């Protein structure tokens, strides 16, 4: 069959309705739903001594006010999503706190009213008495453990994990050079422009719960609600409608509202919805925060890495609902694209009195890239070797694949890089970057990274050809802007020989496809894309077999092209796909749409029962793709920056990306993913930070003070690609969703240090930070 759509910059099928304002985001769904508001703790750590909701309940228009005692599951901890044997002291919060609150923003009461305005009025009347407790804010403070976040978690340590490949101590002892670095990397908040929202309705007649949720995993939410409320999964429908960005914050699951809103709908027998406002987004939506790394590296006179020891602490926040995935990812990704003969990494996941952390685009990879790239820059400075040259000397060569790293990955497997060409990334990036601009205070930055993508366990897809010849396809995972519907339609259209506009994809709706995992970790194209491929192939195969009977041909002599199944070499001998769909379902009663061709007095293609043993009616198939392991994308970013020597204002003069995500399905979409990722990376490197004070209050919980970059802060980006196909999946694709963001902090740190001479050992940076570092007044 022809590959017509794969690799084409097809414009998105998603656009028309979104551009016309016909999108359907969760808050757009009204239907007379009651509206809700949370009462949240203003204290980062406190004991609750009393909660009085009586005044709130009296407010006209208030329908109900819940506290923990009002809920049958009030004493149940929310799910710990990813257990791990090393997570010995995992803790999750409850829907509503009644005993102790451990971060400012933790939910204490839930008000349901006729409108959000009224709910907010009533929420102000809820009286909660708090006894403040000592607060632990930074991971360093958590480590000192003078105060505990959880009384029963000694030392504030939720988990500890040690991995070693080779013998690091021996290698360090023999190394001609050794160096120690202390590096600190803060991420921030995903801050999608659509906040979180949940809408639910319970139908007593149909015994069915329907939930719209701005989530990255409807199938998981459905499973959890079914368990919690004792319903069959088939009685729970969860749909992610249009979602205005997720970036990982919405793959955190079972936020309290995701349980409370459906519960309220069931109790009150009316639709109920909750939409957060921006302020509560900052405290109630998971973030991704600090890691502090103590690195020791051993290297030789040429700058070859001989041994690397990394001991880091990870700021878990107050709870660990997402387990220890982020630090596991960091631990696995520190070596990156470089050969590290002996590598030891230990991390401790530490509790603090802040919002819980869980993945935000990059999910620990930016931290890892920062560590390795700063280490290499330090080696280059020590030896007075060019920074690019040091990297060239250390990157894994193209003939070394599959390359076994020996450390464990987030899917429980050992990290094995499947394919890549890192030297070529470096060469192309340098070429694309071009000569350094003239002028003072200009610096160069460079970073290379690898990215584990396409993690399992699996995804599935259902593909069906309709009687009209149009194709519908569905998969369980939702979209938040990645053009999945277009990209997957391209895959299906190629297999079925139809026009991409004739393939309609539904995603993230358990009514249409109930199995799946979720959209995260740069896996959508790899997992669901390959599942679409598998299902479409099965449909194509069946189409050939059904048509073969009627065309009196061998299925192997048939091809699918131009919406028909036809004999290769004799294209007028064929049937339209729609006609084949008709014939695939033998009917007694013709009901239009060409079905008379499949009735019993029409031509019988062959003797025997209309359906052979094992055959199913309809031109449809369900297929699954379960990856054996992650497939490893990679890239190199480089930049020129100018830093004003007086004001420390940053100007990015040139920013280039060379990227490898295997075979590219839609270059236009890929470009958008990279450009968006780099912008988030720039935001995270120089503008955004979560400023907690010593009392655990987030001081900048608004867009006025949490500084996301506007267009004026983001320079144009030039992108080049190489393709090292993945040997692990039929399409040869690798993931691309997070690539843009991963090395940006490292690149800018390198460039700023080069421009100013100020050693940069932490992120994010800002003019203030640079000013203080230049004065030597920043304790760091």
């Amino acid at each position, binding site marked *: 069959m022809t590959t017509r759509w794969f690799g084409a910059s097809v*414009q*998105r099928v*998603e*656009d*028309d309705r*979104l*551009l*016309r*304002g*016909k*999108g*359907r*985001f969760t*808050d*757009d769904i*009204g239907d007379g739903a009651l509206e809700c508001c949370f009462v949240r703790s203003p204290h980062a750590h406190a004991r609750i001594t009393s909660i009085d909701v009586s005044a709130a309940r009296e407010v006209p228009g208030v329908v109900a006010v819940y506290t923990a005692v009002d809920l049958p599951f009030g004493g149940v901890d929310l799910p710990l999503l990813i257990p791990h044997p090393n997570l010995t002291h995992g803790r999750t919060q409850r829907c509503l706190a009644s005993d102790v609150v451990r971060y400012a923003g933790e939910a204490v009461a839930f008000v349901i009213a006729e409108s959000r*305005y009224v709910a907010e009025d009533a929420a102000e009347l809820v009286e909660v008495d708090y006894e403040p407790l000592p607060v632990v804010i930074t991971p360093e403070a958590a480590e000192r453990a003078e105060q505990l976040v959880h009384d029963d978690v000694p030392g504030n340590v939720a988990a500890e994990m040690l991995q070693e490949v080779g013998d690091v101590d021996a290698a360090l002892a023999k190394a001609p050079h050794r160096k120690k670095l202390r590096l600190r990397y803060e991420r921030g908040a*995903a*801050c*999608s*422009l*659509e*906040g979180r929202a949940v809408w639910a309705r319970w139908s007593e007649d149909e015994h069915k719960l329907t939930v719209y949720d701005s989530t990255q995993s409807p199938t998981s939410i459905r499973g959890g609600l079914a368990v919690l409320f004792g319903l069959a999964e088939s009685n729970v429908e969860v749909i992610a409608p*249009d*979602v*205005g*960005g997720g*970036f990982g914050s919405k793959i955190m699951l079972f936020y309290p509202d995701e349980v409370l809103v459906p519960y309220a709908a069931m109790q009150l027998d009316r639709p109920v919805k909750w939409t957060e*406002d*921006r302020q509560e987004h900052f405290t109630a939506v998971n973030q991704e925060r600090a890691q502090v790394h103590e690195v020791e590296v051993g290297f030789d006179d040429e700058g070859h890495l001989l041994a690397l020891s990394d001991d880091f602490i990870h700021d878990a926040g107050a709870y660990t609902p997402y387990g220890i995935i982020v630090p596991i990812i960091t631990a696995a990704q520190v070596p990156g694209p470089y050969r590290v003969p002996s590598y030891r990494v230990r991390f401790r996941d530490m509790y603090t009195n802040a919002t819980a952390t869980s993945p935000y685009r990059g999910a620990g990879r930016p931290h890892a890239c920062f560590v390795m790239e700063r280490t290499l820059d330090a080696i280059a400075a020590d030896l007075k070797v060019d920074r690019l040259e040091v990297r060239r000397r250390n990157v894994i060569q193209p003939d070394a694949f599959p390359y076994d790293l020996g450390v464990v990955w987030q899917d429980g497997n050992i990290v094995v890089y499947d394919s890549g060409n890192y030297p070529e990334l470096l060469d192309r990036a340098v070429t694309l970057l071009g000569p350094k601009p003239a002028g003072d205070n200009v610096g160069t930055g460079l970073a290379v990274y690898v990215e584990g993508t396409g993690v399992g366990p699996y995804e599935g897809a259902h593909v069906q050809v309709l009687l009209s010849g149009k194709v519908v396809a569905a998969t369980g995972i939702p979209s*938040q*802007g*990645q*053009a999945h519907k277009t990209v997957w339609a391209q895959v299906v259209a190629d297999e079925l020989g139809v026009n991409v506009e004739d393939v309609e994809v539904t995603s993230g709706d358990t009514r249409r496809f109930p199995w799946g995992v979720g959209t995260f970790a740069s896996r959508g194209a790899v997992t669901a894309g390959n599942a679409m491929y598998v299902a479409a192939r099965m449909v194509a195969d069946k189409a050939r077999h059904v048509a073969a009977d009627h065309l009196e041909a061998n299925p192997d002599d048939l091809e699918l092209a131009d919406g028909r199944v036809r004999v290769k070499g004799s294209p007028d001998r064929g049937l339209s796909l729609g006609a084949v769909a008709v014939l695939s379902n033998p009917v007694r009663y013709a009901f239009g749409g060409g079905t008379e061709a499949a009735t019993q007095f029409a031509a019988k293609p062959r003797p025997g029962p209309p359906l052979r043993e094992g055959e199913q009616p309809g031109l449809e198939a369900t297929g699954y793709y379960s990856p054996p392991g992650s497939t490893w994308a990679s890239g190199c970013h480089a930049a020129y920056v100018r830093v004003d020597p007086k004001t420390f204002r940053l100007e990015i003069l040139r920013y280039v990306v060379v990227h490898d995500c295997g075979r590219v399905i839609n270059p*236009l*979409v890929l*470009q*958008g993913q990279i*450009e*968006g*990722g*780099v*912008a*988030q990376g720039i935001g995270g490197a120089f503008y955004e930070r979560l400023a907690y004070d010593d009392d655990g209050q987030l001081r900048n919980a*608004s*867009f*006025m003070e949490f500084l*996301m970059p*506007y*267009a*004026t802060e*983001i320079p*144009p*980006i030039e992108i080049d690609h190489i393709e090292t196909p993945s040997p692990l999946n039929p399409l040869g694709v690798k993931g691309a969703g997070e690539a*843009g963001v991963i090395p940006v902090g490292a690149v800018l740190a390198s460039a700023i240090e080069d421009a100013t001479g100020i050693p940069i050992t932490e992120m994010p940076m800002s003019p203030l930070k640079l000013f203080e570092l230049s004065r030597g007044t920043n304790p760091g």
Partner: protein
Amino acid sequence: MKVNGVERPAPSDTRRLLSDHLRHDLGLTGTHVGCEHGVCGCCTVLLDGAPVRSCLMLAVQAEGHEITTIEGLARDGAALHPVQQAFHECHGLQCGFCTPGFVMSVVGLLAQHPKPTEQEIEEGIAGNLCRCTGYASIRRAVNRAVELGAPAARRATS
């Protein structure tokens, strides 16, 4: 007030923000709310042809004025407005949440500067946040909209 050319009543609750009135009272959910403090731009609509933040207006303040929302740019089934078309061609949207606000801001920009300089384009898109695209494709979309000849903002007719 006139909304997309149609006379509409103002709400009785004077606290109602224009953004909430458009979305929930009038069912025009194309205008989005991202922050309610005027920073993100998702709620941008045209007030008498000029872009404003609908989250920073009380609905009653719009009485006697003409509001144009994203739904007012192209009738159902009719061709997209050139700015909308340009965004589509240039992949100027991903999740689509900031898009109505951007489109209205650009319509307003091109009404004032039909052939904007690069600086005027930067100023014109500088007040809207996008978390998905990194703005590069949005810049391309504005340039494409200029090529397509976006008409001056006109009062929406019924």
